[in-house]
């Protein structure tokens, strides 16, 4: 029987002890975590908070025994470790299977292509006997609410929330005493967030395992945890743990500090700039219109000489985009919101129906945005993708911003202003890929705006963002709206929609969404 099980076949919760523990990543001057003292008792449920750069993810990876830069001899390469970090009295690396880690990106939490195999993977690695593995797989799938899926169901057909629940099942099948969640719901829509949170709650109630979760959105986890630990960025003079205690006390004492650090404290909606109420001269002018539009990401297939159009994810969509007005595209997952927005933005070809640019927008470039050349497109419609990294085309922040204007043969005065306004001035020489999540988001918005488009399309701009970036973004967009830019945002974020105002285009699910 595996060492993590007690005689009853259940789970023995793990204890965590850190004494003066610190970690510096290879090639970095400052330690990610410095002088951490922390005790977590078996069965405790801890929410880790702190500003970005406080080393929350580093700590979680260390507890999972997967902290990087370890060579084949088991030594840390150029990285520096100090003090001690123990799980059940031993270094985490020597406690394989005692902990299970879930990360943010659902796609990389799935290992194998069939549901049953994926759940079994961890148990196989821990050398659990075959019969016991399948018993564990069935139990784990039931615990996370996925038992209705056949074992050979393809994992690629799951939604984001389902993928994260599947990952949880894979972790549970290892019977770990310590469950580590690194922003497990940051990439999920509101339904997915609750799905995952509730599955975690059920499993903890059943197994009694210790939990350490890192998450910006406190309200999601507050009622589930019995302790909040606030970390601060590593420095020689201050301890790593800033605050530690029961949720209500910590949130009461540190509310101001946490909101300043961009943490989503329950009941807190950051203040954003209000619309001025003074319309720009162009406000209300029609820029883009969609009529009876059917959309799909698939291209038409060819069968012999016939062209077979793809099955649209959404059809019969009508919308109007007007200068100085916001349009929020909302609806459940899989309703084709992003696909619609990309089609509207001239990046995808409509399956049927049409997108047409009004004279104010087309300015001689023709009526169909999809037919525009790339240079014609960016000075008319700018699109900010959900993943900022997809849009980086150079190796330096400044070059990123200059890229659009140079392409268009325009002056660079707008770049200065955007750098200033989106707080990127200090970062002009940095590599875009090395920025923090919030900085990447600000940069991706700035780069698209550098080409001065009249219509700005944003795909889930607030996903995974901290409260500070959120507020900056909302305020900045309201300024743009006042100046006459049209803003179309695909979003699940009701507060964000409210902050921008304007019309809402609600899309219904086109097929029944699996529970």
């Amino acid at each position, binding site marked *: 029987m595996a060492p993590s099980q007690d005689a009853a076949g259940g789970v023995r919760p793990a204890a965590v002890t850190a004494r003066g523990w610190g970690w510096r990543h290879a090639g970095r001057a400052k330690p990610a975590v410095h002088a951490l003292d922390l005790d977590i008792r078996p069965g405790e449920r801890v929410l880790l908070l702190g500003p970005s750069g406080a080393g929350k993810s580093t700590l979680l990876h260390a507890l999972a025994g997967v902290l990087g830069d370890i060579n084949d001899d088991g030594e840390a390469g150029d990285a520096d470790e100090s003090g001690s970090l123990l799980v059940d009295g031993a270094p985490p690396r020597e406690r394989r299977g005692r902990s299970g880690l879930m990360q943010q990106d659902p796609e990389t939490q799935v290992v194998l292509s069939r549901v049953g195999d994926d759940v079994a993977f961890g148990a196989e690695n821990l050398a659990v006997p075959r019969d016991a593995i399948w018993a564990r797989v069935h139990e784990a799938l039931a615990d996370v609410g996925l038992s209705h899926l056949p074992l050979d169901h393809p994992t690629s057909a799951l939604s984001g929330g389902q993928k994260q629940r599947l990952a949880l099942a894979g972790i549970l099948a290892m019977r770990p005493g310590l469950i580590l969640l690194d922003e497990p719901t940051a990439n999920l829509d509101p339904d997915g967030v609750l799905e995952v949170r509730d599955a975690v709650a059920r499993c903890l109630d059943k197994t009694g395992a210790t939990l350490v979760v890192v998450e910006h959105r406190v309200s999601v986890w507050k009622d589930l945890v019995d302790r909040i630990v606030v970390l601060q960025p590593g420095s020689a003079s201050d301890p790593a743990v800033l605050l530690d205690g029961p949720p209500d006390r910590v949130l009461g004492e540190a509310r101001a500090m946490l909101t300043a650090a961009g943490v989503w404290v329950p009941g807190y909606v950051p203040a954003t700039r209000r619309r001025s109420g003074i319309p720009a001269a162009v406000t209300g002018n029609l820029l883009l219109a969609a009529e009876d539009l059917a959309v799909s990401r698939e291209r038409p297939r060819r069968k012999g000489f016939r062209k077979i159009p793809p099955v649209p994810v959404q059809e019969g969509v009508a919308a109007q985009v007007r200068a100085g007005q916001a349009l929020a595209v909302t609806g459940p997952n899989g309703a084709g919101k992003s696909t619609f927005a990309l089609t509207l933005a001239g990046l995808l070809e409509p399956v049927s129906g049409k997108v047409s640019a009004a004279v104010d927008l087309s300015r001689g470039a023709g009526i169909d945005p999809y037919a525009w050349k790339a*240079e014609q497109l960016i000075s008319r419609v700018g699109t900010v993708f959900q993943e900022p990294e997809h849009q980086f085309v150079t190796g330096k922040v400044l070059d990123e911003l200059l890229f659009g204007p140079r392409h268009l043969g325009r002056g660079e005065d707008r770049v200065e202003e955007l750098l200033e306004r989106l707080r990127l001035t200090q970062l002009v020489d940095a590599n875009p890929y090395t920025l923090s999540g919030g900085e990447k988001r600000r940069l991706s918005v700035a780069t698209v705006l550098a*080409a001065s488009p009249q219509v700005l399309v944003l795909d889930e701009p607030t996903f995974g963002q901290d409260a500070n970036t959120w507020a900056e973004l909302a305020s900045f967009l309201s300024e743009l709206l006042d100046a006459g830019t049209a803003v179309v945002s695909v979003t699940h974020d009701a507060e964000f929609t409210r902050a921008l105002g304007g019309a809402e285009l609600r899309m219904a699910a086109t097929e029944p969404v699996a529970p």
Partner: protein
Amino acid sequence: MRQQLTLDGNRALLARANPLSKFAAVVLITAVLALSIDWVSASVALVFELILFPLAGLTVSLLWQRGWPLILAAAIGGWSTSILAPDSGRILLDAGIWTMSEGSLQLGIGFLLRGFAIALPAVLLMSCTDPTDLADALAQKARLPHRFVLGTLAAMRLVGLMAEEWQTIGMARRARGVGSRGNVVQRVKATLGQSFGLLVQAIRRASRLAVTMEARGFGGGQRTWARESTFSVLDLWVVGGGVLIAGCALGAALAAGRWNMVWLGS
């Protein structure tokens, strides 16, 4: 693309055979066909293969979807052989530097049939073999190192994801003003840039996946297998079938006096 990495619920007879025995049968047939460029052995093998198609759950349209590059390559190979090979016998077509004679046409047809006959077993194998089952068989039966086999398997799942990501990055770059339309130089430049973007994403994904796998205890010495890779009577039939097809092809070519070893010249 992503669906093609699984079998879409293929319940055909051959899908239940062990991947290793199917692999052995394919190697046998291909080896015999690779030795000679006559049309008799290729036709015999091809006839058998076409009969086997339904057993692998394949239809003609599925075959085309999955194997068109191979089929096209065989056709082009056959065509160019028939016009470029040394002429012998009556001249059938004369278009300046291109001539087709009875001898070269025969060679070309032999080449075409052989191309088909070699390509089809591979398509057959892939369409009735789940990658996960193949990995199980390679690690458990062929005793290949499991770290390598499972690492490759997990990476293959990412390949499907990358195909979707390629499309997204293409759109994201167009939204930055990098056109994938225009003249050849512009297109090549755009494609290179897009490839770099994809590479960065692939490395990020791969390293996150590696962390996921390590956190699930992957990489230790001992491991068990939830799915046992087994041989059954069916596998005897599969290997026996392979021997039979290879043998018939060889025998027919010898009997017809057409056996023509590649390296001995024609």
